[in-house]
Each structure stands twice: as C-alpha cells, then as structure tokens.
C-alpha cells in the first residue's frame, strides 16, 4: 500500500517557468491538501480539496493553482515560478471524517533560480 506519493521528488526551475506537482493517494480519501514548508517554519496550507472536482484556498494560495479531476490525484501548478516559491512541498490526504489524522507524502523539494 503506497499511501501518498508525490512526484517529482526534486526539481530545479528557472524564474518564469511553469510546472505541475502531482500527488496521488490510494486510500480512497476524500480530502487532500498541499502545504509548503520553509526553513525554520511550520507547514503552511496552500490549497485543499474536499472532494473530486472541488478546491479551495488555504493560508498562502497566491501564485499557485490546483486541480482535483480524479479523487485519487491532486495537482499543484506554478504558472510562473518565482524564487520566493523555493520550498519543500508536502501533499496530504484524509478521510471524509475531518477529525481523522492526515497522511503525508515525503515531499517535493523545489528550487527556483
């Protein structure tokens, strides 16, 4: 059972380039989340989804877009990457009961030059 899988694990981009981070979960979870983690800081919520076809903004949504076309996948897009988006990105999923814990992937380390 793979749990939450993030691809790619590492990526280096130039300013202005675009890319998509993929998160896949095989636990049939309803909720999915994208966080970023910067040095010395906790995780900050970027966007989240409470079900297929739905997305919503979190704490730091600017510069990112997301899509949840399939229940098992949650995509995070950067349309025009900026150095301030250099970070480690974590995806998480959760059952439909919001009091249950979240399950995290191992992250994507993204550097924007």
């Amino acid at each position, binding site marked *: 059972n793979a749990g939450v899988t993030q691809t790619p694990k590492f990526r280096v981009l130039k300013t202005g380039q675009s890319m998509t981070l993929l998160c896949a979960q095989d636990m049939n979870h309803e909720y999915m989340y994208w966080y970023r983690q910067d040095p010395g800081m906790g995780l900050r919520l970027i966007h989240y989804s409470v079900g297929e076809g739905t997305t919503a903004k979190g704490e730091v949504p600017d510069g990112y877009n997301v899509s949840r076309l399939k229940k098992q996948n949650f995509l995070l897009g950067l349309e025009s990457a900026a150095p301030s988006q250099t970070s480690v990105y974590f995806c998480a999923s959760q059952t439909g009961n919001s009091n249950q814990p979240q399950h995290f*992937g191992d*992250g994507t380390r993204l550097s924007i030059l």
Partner: protein
Amino acid sequence: LAKTTQPISMDSYEGQEVNITCSHNNIATNDYITWYQQFPSQGPRFIIQGYKTKVTNEVASLFIPADRKSSTLSLPRVSLSDTAVYYCLVKGGYQKVTFGTGTKLQVIP
C-alpha cells in the same frame, strides 16, 4: 484559527521520559489536538490525537487539562531514533488546520 505555541527545541538523554507542552489558548469547542512527528526529508507522521483528559497509544501519551488551553505530549524512554521535530496541531475541520513551528527534540546518547 487557534494558534499554537511550543518550545523551539529540547534536549534529552536516551532512556528518559520527554514531555513537550503546547499552548493553544484560543482552542474552539470542536477542535481536536493532534501531534505529528517529522524526520528530515520526510513528511509529518501522525503520533496521537485527543480531545480531553488523557489518551495513550503504543508510542506516546497525550495529557489535556480540563480547560484544554494546553496539551502535553509524553514520550516514554526516548531513544536516538526519536530525534525529530514534533508538531502540535489544533484541528477543528479541514479548513482550520494550523501547524506551529514545532519542537526540535534532540536525544543525546
């Protein structure tokens, strides 16, 4: 959103019990308290969750006083492999998740 406050770092010797306290003065009635552990280059991993009083599982205990404005994660007899960052999370629904900066626990041989 309920904000959490934890010590930035703690040191402990192997075999000792470690208690990490988290303050969450603005916790709401429906909020649960959840603790996660994070190793370098990995995502956070769930440790324990509670609403009030005491919860215990195979790896930790969680103590929550009656006013629920704080909570204490207790790790019995820590080993070197418990060196990690521990996050206290107050969660009352999917859109109200708030991670603090965490407590970096260093276990010393």
